């Protein structure tokens, strides 16, 4: 069934979801990262687990997003990226991302965040050189996109915890899976 109304704006979307104090989210995530660093031997393994956790979360958040946003089918990866940046980040994190740095084919772009609730209160010691603190976010993007038939690779290009001026995720579309209908036409 087509949506009864047009897509909601980012602010209306954020206003319509149940919200909690961001500090609970920030501190919970921080405590999880800290515990993972204690429990797992390698920083690279921590990065992998954060990405896996994010992937699993992303596969579920996309359902809530589609249920509440009134977004209809996106025609291509470019439109999908715009929707995630303008509506998805706003709905869940209360911030807006910018989409930029498209390649010529329209299959690679960057999401840039200048504000990120995950990292309030966070400082990294020198012993965490290889840690991708926000790897849960790249996992979420990957998981959500895979549920709408787009396989991607997500890498971090800029990280404010490492002294950069913003957070930048590079998202590369590797495969767009054609949708397979489970029912055969009878005619």
């Amino acid at each position, binding site marked *: 069934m087509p949506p009864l109304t047009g897509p909601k704006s980012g602010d209306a979307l954020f206003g319509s*979801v149940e*919200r909690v104090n961001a500090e*609970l989210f920030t501190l919970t995530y921080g405590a*999880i990262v*800290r515990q993972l660093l204690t429990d797992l031997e390698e920083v690279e393994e921590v990065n992998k687990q954060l990405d*896996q956790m994010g992937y699993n979360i992303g596969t579920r958040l996309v359902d809530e997003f589609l249920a509440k946003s009134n977004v209809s089918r996106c025609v291509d990866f470019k439109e999908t990226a715009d929707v995630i940046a303008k509506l998805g980040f706003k709905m869940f994190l209360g911030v807006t991302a910018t989409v930029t740095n498209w390649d010529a084919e329209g299959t690679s772009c960057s999401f840039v965040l200048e504000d990120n609730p995950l990292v309030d209160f966070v400082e990294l010691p020198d012993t965490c050189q290889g840690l991708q603190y926000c790897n849960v976010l790249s996992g979420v993007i990957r998981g959500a996109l895979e549920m709408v038939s787009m396989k991607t690779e997500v890498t971090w290009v800029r990280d404010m915890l490492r002294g950069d001026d913003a957070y930048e995720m590079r998202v590369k579309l590797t495969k767009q899976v054609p949708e397979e209908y489970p029912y055969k036409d009878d005619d």
Partner: protein
Amino acid sequence: MVREVAESCVDGVVMEMVAAYCGRFYAAKPELAARRIEAIGFQVGHQLTERYTMERPRFSDHLEAIKFICKDFWSELFKKQIDNLKTNHRGTFVLQDNRFRWLTRVSIDPSVESMDATDNDSATLGDSAAQTTSMLLYFPCGIIRGALTNLGISCSVTADMSNLPACSFVVRIKT
């Protein structure tokens, strides 16, 4: 203006923490998983009380601190106060939340889930719902213990989920 995020972000992260520790890291050692989840909660509770008591005078006794947890602290986290506080006046307090927010979306009756199972091992499926719930509850227990420890009260906290979605947290103060 207090910064907010969607509740499903917290739900997602908490659920994935439980899934990671119980299902991936310590699948065969539930006590180790429980201890880790409680430790994460302890850290969160400890830090949150730091934030929520910044402009507040020192609590005069244990009951005042417990009341703070039941009212202001719980309202910040769960948008409601604890419904009932009981004590035996000998260092044990029972905090009852009649509709604990983090349990409102979990399966209440394991046997219902069992009936939906297609495999033959439906008993364990029902068991696993209850197990996941009890693992999840180590997190708020840790939050409460961390909060009280930061307020100068050394204690142990356990959860009673025998009446879902109501949940009781039993606080035993150490002397």
